[in-house]
């Protein structure tokens, strides 16, 4: 079958391998691999799939597990299960139910994480919504950061317009976390215009309007407009600073 200006579709059912190339739709049902760089309109993995090279696609769906040996460039990547990228990735809309990891950085427009996200570098997004846990070795830079903690979350730094961290007493529906994992965000600095934190440990928090809620342990808070704090929030030093 041919779609997309004569680019052939490719389907693996059972077990098999596809060569590198340009395709319309690539479907892997069962176990399959792509032996080199892949460019396609749509890549769907149902089962276990691996791509040895770079992948460029309008949309990628992983139901089961997917592993990418190169860079990934996609308009949309949906993961139900688990996916890992050995390098960096640029993705318009990233939707994860389960686990997603990249050894490099992530440039995203929108991220919706239910489960766990791991990135070896910086993560950039206009909108970053996570219910679960993450480990970001670099800077998480997002217009809106909205985190609901179901496990340990860690980033070197967080910066953006609005940063909200919520604690929940519910348990994760997905059993990706050990039952006893601490639900806490840990990072060096958080800098944003509006900051609202619960169960967060940080060396410094800087912003215009800052709320330090339940369970927080913050070294230094610098704010320009307002600071509100809950009774059991620990702040070592707080300072109101001036704007220009």
């Amino acid at each position, binding site marked *: 079958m041919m779609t997309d200006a004569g680019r052939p579709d490719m389907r693996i059912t059972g077990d098999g391998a596809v060569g590198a190339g340009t395709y319309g739709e690539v479907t892997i049902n069962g176990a399959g691999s792509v032996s080199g760089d892949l460019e396609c309109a749509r890549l769907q993995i149902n089962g276990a799939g691996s791509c040895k090279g770079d992948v460029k696609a309008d949309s990628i769906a992983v139901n089961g597990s997917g592993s990418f040996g190169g860079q990934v460039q996609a308009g949309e990547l949906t993961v139900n299960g688990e996916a890992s990228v050995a390098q960096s990735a640029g993705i318009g809309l990233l939707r994860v139910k389960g686990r997603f990891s990249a050894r490099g950085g992530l440039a995203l427009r929108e991220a919706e994480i239910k489960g766990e996200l791991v990135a070896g570098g910086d993560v950039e997004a206009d909108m970053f919504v996570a219910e679960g846990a993450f480990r970001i070795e670099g800077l998480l830079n997002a217009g809106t950061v909205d985190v609901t903690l179901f496990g340990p979350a860690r980033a070197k730094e967080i910066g953006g317009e609005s940063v909200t961290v919520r604690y929940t007493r519910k348990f994760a529906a997905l059993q990706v976390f050990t039952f006893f994992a601490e639900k806490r965000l840990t990072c060096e600095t958080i800098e944003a215009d509006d900051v609202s934190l619960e169960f967060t440990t940080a060396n410094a928090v800087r912003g215009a309007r800052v709320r330090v809620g339940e369970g927080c342990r913050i070294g230094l808070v610098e704010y320009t407009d307002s600071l509100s704090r809950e009774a059991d929030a620990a702040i070592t030093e707080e300072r109101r*600073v001036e704007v220009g």
Partner: protein
Amino acid sequence: MDTELISKKDLLVQTGISYGQLYRWKRKGLIPEDWFVRKSTFTGQETFFPRDRVLKRIERILTMKDEDRSLDDIADAVAPDLGDVAMTAEDALGAGLVSQAAVDVISEIRSAPGPMRLGELLAASVHDALLLSGDASADEGRIVVRVLEEGYALFEGSEADLLFVRKMGFATCLLVNSSAEVVFESGARLVSRVKLQDHIDELAARLGG
């Protein structure tokens, strides 16, 4: 040789922009990654910026914002993708980007005719600046163009400086990473250290309109 730095906090105070704006502009490529310089201070790690350049850039962004231009628009103007720039020597001359002397040197060096690309526009711009300031003679201008033609591409992704050195009437030049400290023996004299990024910024401003 150190560029004067400004801390992130001072930058915000001085320009009146917010953390949100700064991070957004970084994300959109309005402020280059390279300008975020991390340094250890007694309060921990802090971020600094090259003072003059970041202030100039932010002023420009704010002016364009006042003109109601979109962020993407501004990004194209302040940090255009110059990788695919190609213009004829006549156009570059007409736009006042390069001098006839520079065009002559370049056409003498290059193997095939064709439009001028970023490396050549940059080489011409540096050549003109060194000749105009009297730091280099026409002959010496040739070696400047040559080193830029051959070497500039190696520094892709990082900022480089061109060092123009003289010793006992003999001149040479070299390219180094912008952050590199360079020490010369006492007989040699550093005539000029040219920040290539300044020239690229200027080219970008004039090409981006």
